[in-house]
């Protein structure tokens, strides 16, 4: 009697063990399968982009402006130039303001309510959809000037860069040891000089990384440019007028019905991705090598 009961319990135990181990294997398998599943679109996107883009890319793409509809050839020289100008404007506004705000948070606003409020507002701004940023830039600049302009596009992108840069700058400055600031203050170096030459310089590899990432993020933005920079079929450097931009051109060509334009859209996407990936990879190499030797 008692013998059968123990066997039964043993059997049940074994069954239970089997079930546990089966569940465990199932979940493990599921995790592996999911990872493969999400890697597929990535490989598909990058692979197809390389294939389509590389086969459409030629010198003409970089030096010619778009050909009229129906004619073969043409390039996106105007869009590449336009993007360069807009991004230069965005960086020259966004980077200084972002870094300065980060400096305020890390060096002056620590532990103050005002600092927390700025931090929270930066996070809010970071979450604002880029299309809304476009509306704001439109209402503030385009509507006042009564025409689209590269300037408005640059401002919209600059505003999008600020919160990212502010938060990275603050985080990077927080990693600078307090002892180093004390050393500088103890030498009779004024605070502003200490911040510039000691804190910011020590944190510079991380801050540069943050700026590059912010740059890479806005470089591909299309939505804020739709009704600010608007686009232009010709090469223009006049920031008070509509100006072409690479992401904008890709969008227009992608939704167009012409095969020739689709080809150019793929080439443009490849160039855009190469630019962004280049920046991200550079940053990775840079930030690894930029780590301080010795010390700490």
């Amino acid at each position, binding site marked *: 009697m008692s013998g059968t009961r123990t066997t039964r319990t043993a059997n049940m135990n074994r069954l239970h063990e089997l079930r546990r181990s089966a569940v465990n294997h199932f979940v493990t398998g599921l995790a592996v399968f999911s990872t493969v599943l999400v890697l597929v679109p990535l490989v598909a996107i990058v692979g197809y982009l390389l294939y389509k883009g590389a086969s459409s890319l030629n010198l003409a793409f970089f030096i010619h402006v778009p050909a009229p509809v129906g004619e073969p050839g043409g390039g996106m020289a105007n869009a590449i130039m336009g993007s360069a100008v807009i991004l230069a404007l965005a960086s020259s506004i966004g980077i200084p303001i972002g870094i300065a705000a980060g400096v305020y948070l890390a060096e002056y606003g620590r*532990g103050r309510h005002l600092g927390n409020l700025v931090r929270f507002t930066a996070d809010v701004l970071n979450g604002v959809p880029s299309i809304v940023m476009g509306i704001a830039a439109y209402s503030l600049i385009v509507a006042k000037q009564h025409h689209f302009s590269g300037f408005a596009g640059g401002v919209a992108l600059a505003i999008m860069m600020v919160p990212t840069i502010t938060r990275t700058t603050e985080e990077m400055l927080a990693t600078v*040891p307090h*002892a*180093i600031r*004390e*050393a*500088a*203050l*103890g*030498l*009779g*170096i*004024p605070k502003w*000089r*200490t911040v510039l*030459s*000691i804190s910011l*310089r*020590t944190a*510079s590899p991380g801050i540069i990384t943050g700026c590059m990432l912010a740059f890479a993020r806005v470089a591909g933005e299309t939505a804020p440019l739709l009704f600010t920079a608007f686009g232009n079929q010709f090469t223009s450097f006049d920031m008070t007028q509509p100006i072409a931009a690479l992401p904008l051109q890709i969008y227009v060509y992608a939704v167009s019905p012409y095969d020739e334009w689709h080809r150019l859209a793929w080439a443009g996407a490849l160039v855009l991705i190469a630019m962004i990936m280049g920046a991200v990879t550079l940053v990775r190499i840079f930030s690894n090598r930029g780590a*301080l*030797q*010795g*010390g*700490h």
Partner: protein
Amino acid sequence: MGVDIRVENLNAWYGNTHTLQDINLHIPSNQATALIGPSGCGKSTFVRCLNRMHETNPIARAEGTVLMGGLDIYKDASPVEIRRRVGMVFQRPNPFPTMSIYDNVASGLKLNGFRNKRMLDEVVERSLKQAALWEEVKDDLRKKSGASISGGQQQRLCIARALAVDPEVLLMDEPASALDPVSTAKIEDLIFQLKSQYTIVIVTHNMQQAARVAANTGFFLNGKLVEFDATTKIFTTPSDKRTEDYITGRFG
């Protein structure tokens, strides 16, 4: 040449904690003066009040009079001006990690706008010699980062950096507490040699160190200056029972 320091009714707070209570003392010029006491007794706060570093902490506050060669540092000068006249060496070596050895030493002058290259070279060499570091680093002054040398060398680098601005007073907050015995001995030698040119105030928890380098010693306890006298007197016949207890290791 150094100047003397006269402290009258100095009080200091951290938030609501009254860390220094009515300190009165006179630190003579061109001598080393040691401050001893258990940790948390206020001796570090005291030296940080002498170059107004205490107030860099937003919750910290100091009141009273500190006369440095007759100048009231809390009334008649700004913190930056005071700190240019008073060098400070901290508990842990804190060279600027992004700067070369040369730039570390020259930083106090360069970052204050000193541009004369030839004179900078002279000052760097002299300061490193004064800090007994010249021979060890002269070949890679501009090649090595200030953070890449050993801990003992880093602390001497910090001393050289403090000396480069030609201060009148040198404050040292437990300068050897993070170092090995050999490096400690080197730092003590240095203090011994420098004291004829500067007024040196050294905080230490090592009583033998105080006895070796200082002419006068002050004993702090719970934010109060219990006793201040010639070092020999403090260590042989202290007049206060608490000093004697501390010296003989009966509490702490």
